[in-house]
């Protein structure tokens, strides 16, 4: 039996730049930033008051029911149905039993305003009355807020929308999750568990608790006065990432299945690597030993040489640690500037979409292969001695003979994921 090959036949995404792949791709090539002062709630007084928000929020059909749709599920739904339509599969062509959904997805940690009445009733200095807390919660908790289980909602909403009855799961390997879902979906199709998988990620963590949580960890940029300039991967003056939100879904399809229905094939997914730092819960390994190994694994899975890679879409978060670690890891494989391929981070424009980041970045990789042009790293102004590769500063660049591109995602907690896409010919 020959090995099953996996191609990309549809794309859908929503970010702060808007809904739709073309809107986002054009924006990225023009170096447009989606980072602004937070509009969803009043952030006055908070240390971090900027984010890359989807604004206004798109309507989804579930809004007309009693469900309250979590933001991550909303973004997954939009990206999923758009990708499905883009693939032509909305008009038929796939057996629902052979269509799966693999997503990386996450959400905020706690809804403080919702908990406030109960917390207030139960809290006394040095004491907490759980009975009162539960009783008040039961009176004030709106049943339609199905917050408690809602990590999985993104996967179920997408599957329900397109009647996908195949394998279905949601993973949350932090910032690597979207790329991780792509890698696992690739393996599942190769294995024969499905012929088509809607794969990618959706996330929103733009809420008070997450801003406070990442803020106190020192992970976020507090460049509140210059939102557009806050996310600056690889720049010496970078000072943290900017929270973004949104979703990206790719239709991954077995090659013969795609050919048989005359699908428009955009690219092929050929490589996947997955490692863990096993270092510390709070920081990545400073030299990126295991990040490097994820890239090497992906090269080996793709059966290509490092010199075949024409562009790397970096994790590039704009934190001091990630960008130097990632640079060091890339250099050990690809060599110094001049030898290594161009690298850029679209987080400079979209912010960090956490579990969705790797998915929207994979879409940028696919578009780059199709068009022969790569998006820039904006806000790159000051060279950092520990970040000394070619980051495609500030202006998109034509790279006509791209045949392979690499997509890196590294999760908070040490999960490292690399995928490799190939131009389809």
């Amino acid at each position, binding site marked *: 039996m020959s090995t099953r090959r996996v191609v990309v036949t549809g794309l859908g995404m929503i970010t702060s730049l808007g809904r739709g792949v073309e809107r986002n791709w054009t924006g990225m090539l023009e170096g447009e930033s989606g980072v602004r002062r937070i509009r969803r709630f*009043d*952030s*006055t*007084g*908070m*240390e971090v008051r900027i984010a890359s928000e989807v604004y206004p929020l798109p309507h989804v059909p579930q809004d007309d029911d009693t*469900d309250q749709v979590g933001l991550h599920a909303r973004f997954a739904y939009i990206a999923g149905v758009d990708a499905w339509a883009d693939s032509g599969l909305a008009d038929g062509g796939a057996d629902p039993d052979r269509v799966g959904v693999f997503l990386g*997805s*996450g959400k905020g*940690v706690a809804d*403080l305003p919702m908990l406030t009445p109960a*917390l*207030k009733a*139960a*809290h006394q200095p040095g004491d*907490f009355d*759980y*009975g009162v807390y*539960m009783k008040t*919660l039961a009176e004030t908790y709106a049943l339609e807020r199905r917050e*408690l289980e809602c*990590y*999985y*909602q993104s*996967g*179920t909403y997408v*599957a*329900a929308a397109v*009647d*996908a*009855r*195949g*394998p*279905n*799961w*949601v*993973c*949350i*390997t*932090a910032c690597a999750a979207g790329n991780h879902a792509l890698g696992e979906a690739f*393996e*599942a199709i190769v294995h024969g568990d499905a012929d088509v998988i809607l794969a990618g990620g959706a996330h929103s963590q733009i809420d*008070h608790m*997450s801003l*406070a*949580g990442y*803020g*106190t*960890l020192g992970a976020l940029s507090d460049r509140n006065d210059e939102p557009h300039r806050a996310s600056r991967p690889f720049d010496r003056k970078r000072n943290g990432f900017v929270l973004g939100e949104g979703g990206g879904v790719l239709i991954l399809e077995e090659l013969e299945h795609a050919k048989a229905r005359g699908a428009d094939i955009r690219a092929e997914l050929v490589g996947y690597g*997955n*490692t*863990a*730092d*096993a270092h*510390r*819960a709070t920081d990545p390994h400073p030299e990126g030993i295991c990040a490097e*190994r994820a890239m090497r694994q992906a090269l080996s899975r793709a059966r290509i040489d490092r010199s075949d890679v024409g562009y790397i879409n970096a994790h590039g978060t704009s934190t001091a640690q990630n960008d130097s670690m990632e640079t060091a890891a890339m250099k050990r494989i690809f060599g110094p500037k001049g030898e290594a391929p161009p690298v850029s981070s679209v987080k400079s424009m979209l912010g960090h979409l956490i579990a969705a980041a790797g998915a929207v970045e994979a879409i940028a990789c696919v578009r780059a292969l199709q068009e022969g042009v790569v998006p820039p790293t904006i806000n790159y102004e000051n060279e950092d001695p520990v970040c000394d590769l070619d980051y495609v500063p500030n202006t998109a660049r034509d790279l006509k003979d791209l045949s392979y591109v690499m997509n890196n995602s590294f999760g908070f*907690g*040490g*999960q490292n994921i690399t995928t490799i896409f190939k131009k389809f010919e």
Partner: protein
Amino acid sequence: MSRRVVITGMGVVAPNGEDLDSFWSACKEGRSGIAEIQAFDCGSFSVSAAGEVPKYNARPYLPSPKQLKIMGNNIRFAVGASHMAMEHGGLLGADYDPERFGVTVGSGLVPTDVEELGDAIAHSLDDDGKFDVSRFGVEGQRRLYPLWLLKHLPNMVAAHVSIIHNAQGPNNTIVTACSASTQAIGEAYRVVERGQADLMLTGGADSRIDPLSIVAYSLLGALSQGDRAAEKLSRPFDRDRDGFVLGEGAAMFTIESEEHAKARGAEILAEIVGYGSSFDASGVTAPHAEGRGAAQAIARALDDAKMSPEDIDYISAHGTSTVLNDRMETLATKTIFGDHAKKVPMSSIKSMVGHLIAAAGALEAAVSVMAIRENVVPPTINLEEPDPDCDLDYVPNTAREHEVRAVLSNSFGFGGQNASLILKEYAG
């Protein structure tokens, strides 16, 4: 040619036993771990029982007590269960290749620690007592423990486990609620099968015994509201069942390629031979009435194992004790097993430990392996008067000696994500 995958170690932290032996003994004796909640006083709230693992001490498994500060209960359970699984598998301190060793767990939402938040909230209220974001920013936020976010990221379970045991291979966290750990084990099985790792620590850990989860599940109508004794509340397939009881804990396994296990002379406990996953859409919290997706997951696992229903000797049921699930699951089993359905014992340990949500499938897989090892199937306790719609052999109330060579272990998620595993007696 795909590789064979075997189980070589198991560790369990359960409400009715804090290690594998005491858990399995309790299951065979039909001993419940469900009791009145000790962690906090539920006052007059209608639900006050759960399958708790009270005051679990993970300190012996950690190099430093400092790490406990960033570990919620689910992480602590996973740390304990992982240590015991590694020990059971003869892997503690063993010379394995860290780059070929991964971790995949099912986990989920980590409940908000309200005591931790209380002070921050108290300083974030405006004059009318409403939550005020700007006050939170100025006053409330700094009353939080700086690293508190780390307790709330579901992937931290796998992160801590990988750090403690130096597992640098593939690392995944599945968050599909009630089917999360069955899917995690299934995914780990695939990773080893295709050769991306030789050894995996896999399973699940969860703890939802917190006020908000109890209130929210209760409002959804999912929890038992009965006024019986705590240990009588979880009664899968019984006519008077009225919902599940929350449980907490973890079960972890060391699984490896057959070749890897043999090369190091490990004792092989069982083989993983089939995995199937599916989705059925019919609203966010209700299962598909006829169990279409459940039946598909079972069929796919059988297909993956190249086995027929007649080859299955025991079914470790999802059996939550809700009216809807138990009826649906019975129907789905009949759909796939036909006439054979009534001949296969099918029990639910949720009757004894409650519903561990993201850890449930892992505990049930542990029971499946023990059933194969000892040729004993655990009972469904509290099954006094069967529901006429639930007319299979649920092993009521007493464990049974029964020859078990292959087990089907099922998990059906709240949102429609379903997963099934098939475990088999190892024959070289």
